[in-house]
């Protein structure tokens, strides 16, 4: 398999903005917390052509920030991203249209004042994929591809339901004929019955267009369903990377194990309907991450070594890796 998208030791730091109000407060002696937050730290990743890579983790683990950097929407503070060997972003300007994103909230990601036909055709026209005269037919075709009536091209977003809007957002992304599609929690705001429809559509389109996909979600069962390979993130770092079937069957990092155990699982066999085990403790603040392995305060297997030395994410083959001293 060839690598299509690679990230080499990328990190992203967010420094707080000092506003006028902050300066005035400081004049009066207020203490300001100016520590930067490391949203993503030292991530190295290679996405293979045609695969679906799932990114999972709890809120604040950096999965969306990593997704935005891979999409070229956000520049890494350190490290480099390459799409087919070239950086997707140069000097603050995105130079490629080969990566498209579908966002979580279809209410916020579509322009409410624009007809959905214009929303779908704007990018392809701007980048010369189609001419203005082809636009109407093109928009209709894409609506049909995502399972909507082509006659809806001149409707506005408010005339659609949440699931239909997410279909439009998918049509907009795919109309650019991207090589890589980044889906950032695309079904998180949808009801289960609608979520199933969108996941099915996604599976169809992925096959039809041979897409490489990065699928970001906090929902472990959704990620398992669509992904070939899964990266588990904790406090800005990838802690385990593994083929989906293997990761869910035999997680090697204690965090992955604990995360999988903490989801209430429906099982229709046996007597007990649902089982789950909570992880102890809380997510530490990313402002002051724990020393050594960031998971050690909540880990049952933690030893002195875990508190002092950070385990490296070691590739044991081309495919899987785990960052733990006691794997």
């Amino acid at each position, binding site marked *: 398999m060839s690598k299509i998208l690679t990230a080499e030791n990328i990190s992203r730091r967010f420094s707080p903005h000092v506003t006028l109000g902050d300066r005035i407060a400081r004049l009066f002696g207020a203490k300001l917390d100016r520590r930067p937050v490391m949203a993503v730290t030292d991530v190295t990743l290679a996405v293979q052509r045609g695969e679906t890579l799932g990114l999972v983790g*709890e*809120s604040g683990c950096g999965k969306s920030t990593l997704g935005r950097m891979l999409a070229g929407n956000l520049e890494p503070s350190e490290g480099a991203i390459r799409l087919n060997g070239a950086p997707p972003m140069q000097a603050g300007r995105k130079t490629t249209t080969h990566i498209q994103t579908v966002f979580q909230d279809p209410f916020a990601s579509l322009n409410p004042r624009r007809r959905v036909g214009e929303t779908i055709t704007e990018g392809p026209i701007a980048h010369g994929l189609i001419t203005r005269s082809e636009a109407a037919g093109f928009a209709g075709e894409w609506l049909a591809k995502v399972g909507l009536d082509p006659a809806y091209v001149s409707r506005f977003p408010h005339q659609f*339901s949440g*699931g*239909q809007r997410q279909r439009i957002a998918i049509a907009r992304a795919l109309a650019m004929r991207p090589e890589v599609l980044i889906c950032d929690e695309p079904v998180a705001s949808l*009801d*289960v*019955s*609608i*979520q*199933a*429809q969108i*996941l*099915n559509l996604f*599976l169809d389109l992925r096959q039809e267009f041979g897409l490489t996909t990065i699928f970001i979600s*906090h*929902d*472990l*069962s*959704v990620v*398992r*369903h*669509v*992904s070939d390979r899964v990266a588990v993130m904790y406090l800005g770092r990838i802690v385990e990377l593994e083929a*989906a*079937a293997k990761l869910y069957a035999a997680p090697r990092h204690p965090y992955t194990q*604990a*995360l999988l155990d*903490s*989801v*209430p*699982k*429906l099982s*229709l066999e046996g*007597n007990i*309907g*649902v*089982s*789950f*085990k*909570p*992880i*102890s403790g*809380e*997510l530490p603040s990313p402002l002051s991450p724990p020393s050594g392995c960031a998971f050690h305060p909540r880990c049952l297997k933690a030893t002195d070594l875990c508190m002092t030395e950070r385990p490296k994410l070691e590739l044991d083959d081309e495919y899987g890796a785990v960052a733990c001293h006691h794997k």
Partner: protein
Amino acid sequence: MNPALLQVRDLRTYFETRAGTIKAVDGISFTLERGEILGLVGESGSGKSVTGFSLIGLLDPPGRIAAGSVMFQGKELVGLPQAEMRKLRGKRIAMIFQDPAATLNPVLTIGQQMAMAVQAHGGGGDSAALALAARSLARVGIPDAAARLHAYPHEFSGGMRQRVAIAIALLHEPELIIADEPTTALDVSIQAQILAEMKTLAQESGTALIWISHDLAIVSSLADRVIVLYLGRIMEFGPVADVLRAPLHPYTRGLLDSLPAMADPGQKLRQIPGSTPSPLNVTPGCPFAPRCSQADDLCRSEPPPVGDQRHGAFCHHPLPGAA
């Protein structure tokens, strides 16, 4: 035999809007025994939250209870004057909401808010109220509870804030707690902690719990019985294990089949076609008929009947169920 703790009969909550009457809750009946945990499951617009608000008398206009009765320990709550309702609310019936950041007052310390909640129902002096507050915080697993009374809500994480909200609900040892999606805004690991704690708290204190959620798995991990709602009506009800293992209603079956966890990875999910119709034009028969593969003319015209059993479905053509 004592009457049931809560007896809801044909509850109808309507919202009058310019576009017409929205029947958010359209004839719901159930009973709840002391110490029992009942799950209310449904997708958006199913009326699950409005049911909760109707029970505790927190409906805002244009919402109103159009018909039905809510008997709480033999006392009728529908039409009860606000002053009477206020004596019950927080004391004998408490509610936990989805967003703990919105339910706590940001400019008061946790201790001040909790003391107010204690004293609203005659909880004695300040020091007694604070002591009770600290005990309640300790019960929900907040470390160093007495010191945390002086903290403001923003000093707590999301999971801790929800614990505070639960501690407030537990202050007066209510007979009934209504929890409206209390773990939806939380991460899975925190959600698991809260679910485990709620289960033990309910068992220890004998408090009955109505747990409202869109997630079948979460409800099933807690509840003894479950009610599946769709467009303001009950589709199916029964003990959790029976409903999950042998659903009688095509909608419940469809919901279970839609879950990715129930399918083989990468395979197509069995989806329910269509989307929830507008609550303004619900068909006269079964509300699920337009999306149901088994629907016939009878389903479209006649509301389905239901027997008086432990596990039942409002359906003309129920699935075979347990073999």
